[in-house]
């Protein structure tokens, strides 16, 4: 089950949750192992600097990995990256753009 919606109540406060399988799209196979990890962190909103700190490498290394991943995935922005990781799903998105 890909997507689910849950409602719960804890101590009188109400909560809702949407959950879904973490996307592991085939396009990620084009990347090296470390590019894949870096790109997933980057798509989650971490900055290159934060990722560099976490992986104990230089910010420049991360920037290089991100840029080669962008080239391989044929994206040119972080937003593109996120949508391409959800590739199957973005096709269904009501596209508001002239973009393909």
């Amino acid at each position, binding site marked *: 089950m890909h997507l689910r919606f849950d409602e719960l109540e804890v*101590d009188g406060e109400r*909560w*809702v949750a*949407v*959950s*879904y399988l*973490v996307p592991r799209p085939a396009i990620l196979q084009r990347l090296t192992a470390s590019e894949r990890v870096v790109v997933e962190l980057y798509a989650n909103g971490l900055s290159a600097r934060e990722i560099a700190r976490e992986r104990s490498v230089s910010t420049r290394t991360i920037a290089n990995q991100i840029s080669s991943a962008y080239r391989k995935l044929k994206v040119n922005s972080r*937003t593109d990256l*996120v949508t391409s990781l959800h590739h199957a*799903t973005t096709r269904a998105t009501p596209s508001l753009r002239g973009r393909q």
Partner: protein
Amino acid sequence: MIRLRAPFEPVVAAIYGPSVDEREWLSEVRSACLVAFEGCSDVQAITFSVDLEAQRMNLATVVCGAPFEDALRESYALADPRTFKVAINAGSMTLASKAAPTPSLARDRAVAGGVQDLLQLTARPSKLLHVAVSFSFTHPLERIPTPTRQMLRRLAAHLEAAARLRAAAQNAARMPSLLDGSAASTEMHARVKAALEDDLGRASGGEPRAAHLVEFWHGLLSGRYAMVERYESRGRRVVLARVNSPAETASRALSERERLVIERIAAGDRAHQVAHDFGVRESTISAAVARCLRKMGLRHVTELVELHAVLAAGGLSADLIPSGALASPRPSRRA
């Protein structure tokens, strides 16, 4: 107790006014400062005084590592420093008197340098957590030397900018992250997550109806829900949101125009494209997006884009999105 006034216009007016009673001016300056720094609670204190008897501006700059209120309490033995925030110059030493006790060229230079320091400090209002200014003088206002008046005017402008920034920061603080790191909230979240784990572990519950997803998405936009946490568990990504109280809902709701912007950004449009279509600057859109994300409890625009993509795939279909959001954009410049 000094009466509060709208910040700083009175100060500037008074500085340039032809003949203003010094007490009145002093009171204006104090009120303005009090307005500007009411509620400040940390780190940096600056005091300076205009000594018209000596035709000099004397300055004492105090940058406290300790919280400001504590510093005030220690320096002036005040039981409740908040009410005396500005009227504190009584015993402050001056750079000038420290540098050279008698009037001299060296003293003039020291004073001028001190004022320059003060202007530099206040020129970065974002760094300006605390400024307390007090003036004490005995001569009429028109005898303030012109350069000093100009410096005072610039200072007033700096203080005004600091007040604006502070107001903006307070505004942001009204939309705090829902995970404040306190023990109570941490414990609460552990319980919510545990309960959710149970739910997710159960086989029951099927594909959500499209209505649920619409509800979730619109709940975020209308302030009814605010995202609290996004985490991974058992190979699933969970977006956990709290159902807000009516009061909180009102303050977190997106305006009609904010909604239009956020729908576009969520669908993957870039800020510059939206700005172009709306006929506003890109920075206006970026600021709106940052504000909206804060209201919705999201930390980064990628979270918005991903959530929208997932919900859209799940059946949040075009006809369920407010029609305004689907207004056809002008052809992209890139096309």
